[in-house]
């Protein structure tokens, strides 16, 4: 069954890209190619769910394909299936969305390219988790990276797209090299097949292990957006078309998580717990950095991108915790750590794709991507507003939506870890818990700010004033993830039971999770019953609404908003996104390092008549400056130095050959 599903998926993606290229660009081509993308995603989802349910994993190998690199070999196991199903789950709505979203691209070359690349991108993302040898993995990885890069730079009108693309390209290729090196060391000149590497990995020296882990974390971390290698993410996501940024943030970034888990928990032998501690700390720092920037950012899609960084941080808390616990010999907690990480991966995939699609609709409708220029959209785009509110509440991690369930699990995880371990973790886990709690609170601030400034109050610009609702296809596409948010929030056990199977496959048995509506975990003394809470909320809310309707004995009047007797209410008196974040900017001054410049425009007659005052407030990107500027400088210096070699003397060039050969031989000898 699942073999055919895979075949269908790949065939569909191929068909989609070919049709987009071959067919004269237009509505027909758009429909056909996106429809086949949709079919492919559904097939991928079917494949994933089938394998997750049956637990049957199979492999397929062909030496003929990709022959020079050592042939293609695929393996579908529950872990891979889970990530494939995430790709399918988020790809399907994205394809429907693109039907309405990319209408204006019809009849242009760009339309063709975008649709074709979209299919290629999906195919690449489906193949990455399935790869069972280095060649296939790197090939799929590169396909995914290149297609997404081209999609990022696909819109020439998008300001800053080329720069974003450059950042992305450099980071992803640095990652690629790190990946290659890591795999080569891991394989220890054995065959570059995953099973062989799994068998051989036990023989690695601790030093080599350390190097591999670092390389892999650098590579997958740079794809996932771990601090400090996250810098491409907030640049690339806003530049890409929204359905692509939704996919990048919901699926592609998650493949970094997949790679980490696959290497650290499957290919590598059990590692020292300190790696876990490091990973945990890294995750926490990432989460804090992401959420702090997402609270202060005013560019709509960049707010979402930074919140993706935050959630990636929260996800990485899981594997770190799992490594730690496995190191301390508490297998059940380790398994829980991974389960929670995977569950949050799923939840974030769902609500972040919803939010990016909604953001696309807003940018599309209001013709601006800055929060400061929006406002009042809830009246102009009512359906988008409702759907976006669902996503925003999931982002804020409040019941009864899925974001809350995984946050609750993360809290329980850290508490249980603190309870069941030696005081050596006495420092780490409480601090981690505090940090996660702070992240949750700030995420709520960011969510309120996002929805409140963009959708509520009065429109701040003409663009927002005559914004229009998104076409039906886009709204339908947003409805799917919104429903998923609700279902995952109400019945988390639906997914969690499958995830326990996934981690059991990784040699971390967690024990059978009961499939009831209430969420009960081993080693956790408390339980959560989301459906009951939701019912309680709904009931009490309805009663309250009824009371407010019936109790009043006097009429309801509509009047202008009360602004202390001012004659007219103008959007200029509204709180702006920047103002909303101001208290936090003050509290975390050390982090933002804000810069203020005030320019007063005075009347020529006298300096006492002020025409206008403009305040320009920004914060220093110290992370980039301290980390990357030196790197760039070093790279330039090296290239200049090597430039010196080009003297033009043929003898020098000839001399370089034997020199290089000699050096290689020596190095090879030395490594033996």
């Amino acid at each position: 069954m699942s073999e055919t599903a895979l075949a269908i998926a790949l065939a569909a993606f191929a068909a989609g890209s070919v049709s987009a290229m071959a067919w004269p660009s237009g509505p027909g081509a758009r429909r056909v190619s996106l429809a086949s993308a949709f079919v492919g995603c559904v097939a991928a989802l079917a494949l994933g769910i089938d394998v997750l349910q049956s637990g049957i994993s199979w492999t397929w190998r062909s030496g003929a394909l990709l022959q020079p690199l050592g042939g293609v070999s695929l393996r579908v196991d529950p872990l891979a299936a889970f990530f494939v199903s995430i790709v399918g789950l988020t790809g399907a709505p994205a394809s429907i969305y693109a039907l309405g979203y990319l209408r204006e691209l019809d009849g242009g070359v760009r339309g063709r390219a975008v649709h074709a690349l979209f299919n290629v991108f999906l195919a690449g993302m489906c193949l990455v988790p399935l790869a069972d040898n280095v060649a296939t993995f790197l090939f799929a990885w590169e396909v995914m990276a290149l297609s997404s890069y081209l999609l990022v730079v696909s819109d020439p009108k998008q300001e800053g797209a080329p720069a974003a693309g450059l950042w992305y390209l450099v980071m992803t290729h640095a990652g690629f090299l790190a990946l290659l090196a890591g795999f080569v060391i891991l394989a220890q000149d054995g065959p570059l097949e995953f099973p062989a590497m799994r068998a051989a990995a036990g023989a690695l020296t601790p030093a080599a292990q350390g190097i591999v882990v670092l390389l892999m974390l650098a590579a997958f971390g740079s794809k996932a957006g771990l601090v400090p290698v996250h810098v491409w993410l907030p640049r690339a996501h806003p530049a890409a078309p929204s359905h692509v940024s939704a996919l990048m943030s919901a699926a592609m970034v998650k493949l970094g998580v997949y790679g980490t888990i696959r290497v650290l928990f499957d290919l590598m032998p059990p590692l020292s717990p300190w790696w876990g501690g490091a990973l945990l700390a890294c995750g926490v720092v990432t989460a804090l950095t992401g959420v702090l920037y997402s609270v202060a950012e005013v560019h709509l899609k960049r707010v979402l991108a930074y919140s993706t960084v935050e959630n990636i941080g929260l996800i990485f808390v899981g594997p770190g915790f799992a490594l730690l616990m496995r190191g301390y010999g508490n297998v059940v907690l380790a398994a829980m750590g991974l389960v929670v990480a995977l569950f949050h991966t799923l939840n974030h995939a769902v609500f972040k794709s919803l939010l990016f699609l909604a953001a696309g609709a807003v940018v599309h409708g209001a013709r601006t991507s800055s929060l400061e220029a929006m406002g009042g959209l809830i009246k102009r785009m009512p359906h988008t507003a409702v759907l976006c509110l669902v996503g925003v509440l999931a982002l804020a991690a409040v019941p009864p939506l899925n974001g809350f369930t995984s946050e609750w699990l993360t809290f329980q995880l850290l508490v249980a870890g603190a309870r069941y371990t030696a005081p050596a973790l006495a420092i780490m886990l409480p601090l981690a818990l505090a940090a996660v709690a702070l992240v949750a609170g700030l995420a709520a601030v960011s969510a309120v700010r996002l929805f409140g400034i963009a959708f509520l109050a009065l429109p701040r610009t003409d663009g927002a004033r005559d914004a229009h609702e998104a076409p039906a296809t886009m709204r339908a596409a947003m409805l799917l993830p919104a429903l998923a948010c609700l279902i995952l929030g109400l019945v988390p056990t639906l997914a969690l039971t499958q995830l326990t199977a996934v981690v059991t496959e990784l040699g971390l048995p967690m024990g059978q999770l009961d499939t009831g509506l209430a969420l009960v975990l081993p080693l956790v003394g408390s339980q959560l019953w989301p459906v009951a809470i939701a019912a309680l909320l709904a009931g009490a809310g309805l009663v309250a609404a009824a009371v407010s309707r019936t109790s009043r004995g006097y009429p309801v009047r509509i009047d202008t908003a009360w602004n202390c007797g001012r004659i007219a209410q103008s959007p200029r008196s509204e709180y702006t996104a920047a103002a909303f974040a101001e208290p936090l900017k003050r509290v975390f001054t050390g982090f933002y390092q804000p810069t203020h410049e005030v320019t007063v425009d005075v009347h020529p007659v006298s300096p006492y008549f002020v025409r206008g005052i403009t305040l320009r407030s920004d914060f220093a990107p110290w992370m980039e400056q301290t980390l990357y500027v030196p790197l760039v400088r070093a790279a330039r210096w090296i290239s200049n130095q090597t430039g010196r070699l080009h003297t033009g003397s043929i003898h020098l060039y000839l001399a370089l050959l034997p020199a290089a050969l000699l050096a290689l031989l020596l190095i090879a000898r030395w490594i033996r």
Partner: protein
Amino acid sequence: MKLFTKIIRTGVVTEPLPDRAASAITLAREIDRRAQSLFGRALAIRQVDAGSCNGCELEIAGLPGPVYDMERFGLHFVASPRHADMLLVTGPVTRNMAVPLRKTYEATPDPKLVVAVGDCARTCGVFAGSYAVVGPVDRIVPVDAYIDGCPPEPAEILQGILAALGRIEGGRRG
């Protein structure tokens, strides 16, 4: 600690209202019983300075204090007309305050009372005829009760409010 010993030593300083008939109060029009029963022992007041000399404000500022303690009657000041049941308007209505007064009245949910405090609010007092003055309060919003005096004492203001609520007798029908 000093603070609390002082508190204990001082005790409650609130004075009972003088029971002499409140001569300073004029009830401009009949207030419907439903509203009166509703506001019986719970009334939220929004004070609007329509352009007074702040003499009346000084007296009004005495109301929440320990001596007159309006809270014992269930009265309290609120920060927004949306929360208010009664507007306590002082001063002749100046040109600048005419619209805000009107808007404040409209912003107050039904049912609502308007009590005009001080001579200026009723007759514009010494400011009558000034180019800056539109007129007395009832030129702008319907007034339920007047409290005369320049300025009226806090006790009289309290009596006026209570008379408007029909909780104490007294006050001429005007």
